[in-house]
């Protein structure tokens, strides 16, 4: 790998080079503009014929100095920036962040706000997984599943728009609660959506999961052994697809997740198929959680009493939550001032992507797209 890690001049696009090792080896560059890298990701693949012998991901094309900006904003002002981290799961990003600050402050959030948080976070998980499912099928050649998934996702986005005014970057969570309450008919609309959504999952199964062609593309491909997953600190569906029962909502519960009954899907085959099934099952489980939360939703305040300027006591904290992509961690150092002294985001996709070269070894070039799809990356949070 040494010759690949020497710094390349800025702007180099290595198309094809022959190394001295074998006449068959060549480098192929994938991205940063590519329909299947789901963002500005550049992958340098080293091929031996059709087999991938090495892969070097280049990230940073979407780096927006998020952490530096965070040091110059008040704690509340950072919330809209967290939306733009993983823009496909903004509610989860908000959730992780405000939870970290509240933990630092020792703040207790009102019951209704907690329930609202869980409902929105789980709906967001469904929306994020729907988008993942659609684009994953699209990469493998099935155009129709993309449209079907987006149809359901549009409904969730309509719900989010009703509640926050935004379709994508909601900035809806506040430190100590939520920005606004649910509109009048929102709970019924949400229930109606769940009723519509429940029979859709078997529809996706008929189209994709049960299709032997699709199964042949994803079974046995991109194997990530459990040990490697833990060593590389993979999280979320990467771990659960490798047989490890680890879900932060269960194993390190935060908010009120311990009040809900839901299964944590775990599959053993460690390949793309397992991760696919994990996410597909998670959608069903999230729907379950939302139903229970809607039934238990209490009346009451949605925002705790917080001072106008939020000044957590001096200290540091690492708090983690389960975003659709894995373990989202916020490491905050507060010096008692209104702005964080150090604000670090531990992004799940960043860490999950680092294990991609391990998964791709020995795969065919055509599998690269399937394996990358199974990691479910969002460049916004990888690059911050």
């Amino acid at each position, binding site marked *: 790998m040494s010759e690949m890690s020497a710094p390349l001049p800025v702007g180099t696009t290595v*198309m*094809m080079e022959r190394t001295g090792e074998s006449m068959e080896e060549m480098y*192929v560059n*994938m991205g940063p503009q590519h*329909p*299947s890298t789901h963002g500005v990701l550049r992958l340098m*693949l080293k091929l031996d014929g*059709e087999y991938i012998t090495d892969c070097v991901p280049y990230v940073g094309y979407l780096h927006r100095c998020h952490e530096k900006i965070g040091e110059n904003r008040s704690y509340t002002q950072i919330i809209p920036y967290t939306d733009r981290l993983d823009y496909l799961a903004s509610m989860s990003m908000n959730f992780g962040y405000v939870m970290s600050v509240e933990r630092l402050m020792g703040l207790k959030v009102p019951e209704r706000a907690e329930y609202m948080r869980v409902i929105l976070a789980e709906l967001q998980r469904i929306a994020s997984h729907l988008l993942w499912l659609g684009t994953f*099928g*699209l*990469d*493998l*050649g*099935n*155009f*129709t599943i993309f*449209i*079907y998934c987006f*149809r359901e996702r549009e409904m969730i986005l309509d719900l989010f728009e009703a509640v926050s005014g935004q379709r994508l970057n909601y900035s809806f969570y506040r430190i100590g609660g939520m920005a606004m309450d649910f509109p009048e008919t929102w709970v019924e609309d949400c229930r109606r959506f769940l009723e519509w959504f429940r029979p859709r*999952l078997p529809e996706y*199964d008929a*189209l*994709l*999961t*049960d*299709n*032997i*062609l*699709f*199964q*042949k*593309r994803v*079974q046995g491909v991109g194997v990530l052994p459990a040990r490697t997953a833990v060593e590389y600190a993979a999280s979320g569906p990467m771990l659960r697809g490798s047989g490890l029962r680890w879900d932060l909502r269960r194993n390190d519960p935060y908010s009120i997740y311990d009040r809900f009954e839901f299964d944590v*899907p775990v599959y053993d085959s460690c390949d793309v*198929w397992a991760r696919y*099934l994990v996410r*597909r*099952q998670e959608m*069903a489980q999230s729907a379950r959680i939302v139903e229970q939360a809607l039934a238990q939703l209490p009346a009451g305040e949605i925002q705790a009493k917080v001072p106008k300027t939020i000044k957590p006591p001096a200290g540091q904290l690492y708090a983690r939550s389960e975003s659709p992509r894995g373990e989202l961690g916020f490491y905050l150092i507060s010096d008692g001032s209104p702005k964080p002294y150090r604000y670090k985001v531990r992004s799940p996709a960043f860490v999950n992507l680092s294990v991609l070269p391990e998964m791709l070894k020995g795969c*065919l*070039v*055509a*599998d*690269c*797209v399937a394996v990358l799809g199974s990691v479910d990356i969002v460049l916004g949070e990888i690059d911050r």
Partner: protein
Amino acid sequence: MMTFADLVQSLYAFAMAWGIPYVVFALVVMAIQVGAVIGYISVAAMFLIWWERKISAHIQVRFGPMRVGGWHGWAQSIADGLKLLLKEDIIPRGADRVVFVLAPMVVFAASLAAYVTIPWAPGLIVRDLNIGILYMVSISSLTVVGIIMAGWSSNNKYSVLGAMRSAAQAVSYEVPMVVALLGPVMLAGSMRMGALVEAQAQGAWLGILPGWFVFPQILAFLIYFICALAECNRLPFDIPEAESELVAGFHVEYSGMRFAIFFLAEYANMFTVSAIATTMFLGGWHGPWITLPGLSPGLSQGLFGLAWFQVKCYFLIFVMMWLRWTLARLRVDQLMDFSWKVLLPLSFANLVITGWVLVAGTQILLMVLGVLFVVALAVGLAGRARGRAATGTARG
């Protein structure tokens, strides 16, 4: 009875009476035939493109073109064609100009040449060669040459890889295709397209089903249809064209009218393979007909035959489009595996069984029909059950 042949005869007589040399007459007739076929292909391709967009849209719970031209956007293809005509003609620097320009023409010419032996209606066929089906399959395989020319001349290593993959796919799927086509040829006893249709126009299976070869040759039909999808580079065999794959297709450097010719050739090809399937398996132009008032029986049969042929061809094309928008893509090595390890042995099995049945007699034919059908059903159900079982606990 006024058939196309009679029309040509009367024109010939007319030309002779006027002292026009035969050569000129023959060339004029050929020019008319070519013009008619090209005209048909253009209109059919435009229709098919619009139809594909509509079908894909309705499968995807949306509408497709709705505005251009008024009713359901019927003029969309015309608008797209005009747009492609007006685009800038880009030839990449370093590309081999002659080969680059010729490649789409070769592909289109090969696709066009296959229309010579398509039996549109009783008596309406450009030239009913006695090696009809052999000619069609051989000529349409010349498109591979055009594809390789396109990939190589683009001066783009990805194009070359894409072209090589496409060529490998086309060649691999031709073998089971041709072996599958031998089944109906054996049943009809001739390779002439007209003879194939006539053989299916008589008789009936079990007294009620029409005498089409699809019933005894269901396995060959399925094999042929799958191979036809691969020949046309349609999903699930569209690795050479897929833009979300790592290696781009062979036509990535083509734009404007040149790309339009590739596109046109693809739809022309789709029609050709459907026409072959219709002729060999679905009875060609054979279908119920009535004598229309004011027309001779021959002409009525001709018109109805023309209509039936179109209906059957477009039905098969509809199935191709339906599959495209439902299934996922096969990987290159899985594609090759499937062709050589599954389709080819099955097609040989079909050949052997057909031969044996023809020698042994009709009772055995019925028995073997039944066995084949049961086997096919069992394989299909087993595959479906395997698919379900693999999903396992992913229910609810």
